């Protein structure tokens, strides 16, 4: 294991070191100590390495991640794993706003709660939140799966496209053009796999599925109030 003390080498050197890891690197395990809430930690990674951050992070930790696994042993600031393409990001604590925003792929697991706009504009990413999520989550979500083991706040799935939203607890309110959908066997299968990968023992049968009613897909003046 390679250890980087962020307080000693600084953000630029740390990310430069991680970015320099090639696809066939032997140095596959990294530990970052003293993160102290710094922004942009381990963003833009593109190698099959595992990075463990020993503490809480600021904005955009693991942003645009490709291939790598990033473990945050604390809570995460806004935009964690934003625009992730592939790989995995695990947050032991809570995540602030816009977790997994616009993510195209990979898996984001938040073991605590996630704040507002979790999965906003998601484009293929899978997100599993063990706790609750805040308002406007999955706003304009295009594709991928958002799994919430707790409760969801206001306006879930507002203006969403084809993202699948699974919530075990209550939903305070659904956003414009979001509705409860039938839970079919293939959805239970997706849920089972994601919950297992996220280390959750929740039962797929306890969830409800939500998604787009597709009424806003082409403009109709009779739906103008929903815009």
């Amino acid at each position, binding site marked *: 294991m390679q250890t980087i003390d962020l307080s000693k080498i600084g*953000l*630029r050197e740390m*990310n*430069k070191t991680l*970015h320099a890891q090639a696809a066939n690197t032997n140095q596959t395990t990294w530990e970052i100590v003293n993160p102290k809430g710094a*922004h*942009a930690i381990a*963003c*833009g990674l*593109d190698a099959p390495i595992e990075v463990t951050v020993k503490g809480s992070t*600021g*904005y*955009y930790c693991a*942003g*645009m991640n*490709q291939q790598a696994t990033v473990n945050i042993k604390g809570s995460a600031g*806004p*935009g964690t794993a*934003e*625009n992730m*393409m592939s790989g995995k990001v695990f947050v032991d604590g809570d995540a602030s*706003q*816009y977790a997994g*925003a*616009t993510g*195209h792929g990979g898996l984001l697991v938040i073991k605590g709660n996630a704040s507002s*706009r979790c999965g*906003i*504009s998601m*484009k*293929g990413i899978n997100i599993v939140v063990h706790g609750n999520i805040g308002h406007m989550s999955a*706003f*304009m979500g*295009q*594709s991928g799966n958002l799994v919430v083991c707790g409760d969801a706040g206001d306006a879930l799935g507002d*203006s969403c*496209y*084809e993202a699948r939203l699974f919530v075990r607890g209550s939903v305070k309110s659904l956003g414009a053009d979001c509705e409860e959908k039938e839970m079919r066997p293939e959805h239970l299968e997706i849920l089972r796999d994601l919950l297992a990968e996220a280390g959750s023992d929740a039962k797929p049968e306890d969830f409800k599925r939500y998604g787009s009613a597709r009424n806003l*897909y*082409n*403009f109709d*003046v*009779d739906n*103008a109030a929903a815009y």
Partner: protein
Amino acid sequence: MNKHDPKGIPHTTPRQSATFTQDVNSDIRRAAATGIYDIRGGGAKRKVPSFDDLLFMGASISRYPLEGYREKCETSVTIGGLHAENPIELDIPITIAGMSFGALSGPAKEALGRGASAAGTSTTTGDGGMTAEERGHSNKLVYQYLPSRYGMNPDDLRKADAIEIVVGQGAKPGGGGMLLGQKISDRVAEMRNLPKGIDQRSACRHPDWTGPDDLEIKILELREITGWKVPIYVKVAGARPYYDTTLAIKAGADAVVLDGMQGGTAATQDVFIEHVGQPTLAIIRPAVQALQDLGMHRKVQLILSGGIRSGADVAKAMALGADAVAIGTAALIALGDNDPRWEAEYNALGTTAGAYDDWHEGQDPAGITTQDPELMARFDPIEGGRRLRNYLKVMTLEAQTIARACGKNHLHNLEPEDLVALTMEAAAMARVPLAGTEWYPGKPGTGY
């Protein structure tokens, strides 16, 4: 005497209302029939104070001109040297503004790359991501980072020569984009990760930051991901140029792109285009003032866009303090958009050459703002690239002609003192004297 006027009383001539004009009435009838606001492409069509209201004074005895064709007048510009390891070096200060693949066809994007590269300048992606043909044909490609993040990925980000964070657009400050279902072809749908044929809405705010403090952190992230190599521009609409420019600089931008209301859009509400934003002429001096107040003029570059059409416009923008300009609509016209050769087809669409602005409907007879394979096939990207190169060269020669006449050996040496205004409005906005006077409204020390 006629049957309607049996007593022989003279009629007044029929009088059209200045309030309810034929244009206005047609808008009302269209709204009543459809229940939908009018959507169109392009920028503001209303008449606003513009660069046409300014004149260069040239040289005589008090100023010394340079010899045309003999004495050099440089045109190069470097953008992004403040923070980036690899700033953008351009031969001419006229860049191609962001226009999306989706709004434009693939061959049209290719032509923009070809023309810009041949003229020694940059082109820019748009909402919807970077296409291979665009990257392949553009020596210098600026990658737009937009609220929708359609097609946004770190691989393309790293291929870019600069990144432009789009906060706003002159045609619609505070508005998002729209691409109607007719233009969401298989390829466009795949790049944007959307179902085919739906009306695609683009958000008006970025999904993962709000406000200038967040923007500073977003810029940090983008720099970290791209290794601090490429410049980062911030594009803002001409809304509150002094404050927006100040905040962009404070957030760490290498360049500020400032877009006035004549700047085009692929599609948005007509009411937005015509009634929100400020004319290009009105926004430049406050932005330059912000740069000067922060000691950043010429360190952070200012790229002005919105209705730039000629070398005279380029020279005037630079005299007022811009480092470069960007063209969008003008570039499309150079490619062949709105060309009278397609008049019969424009007529069939209920319009005429020069007025066609339903770019979002994908029926462009010129084959530029469409995804229809048959219409696209009408457009030759090699010929289009050649035409754009010619146009950029002419604009550059025109700007040089003016600069030499003002005694300047570099376009950057043009200055407000070279200009006068023809109208009070233009004098106030450009802060140059009304022609024949030494005064402009709001001039410090004049009391009014």
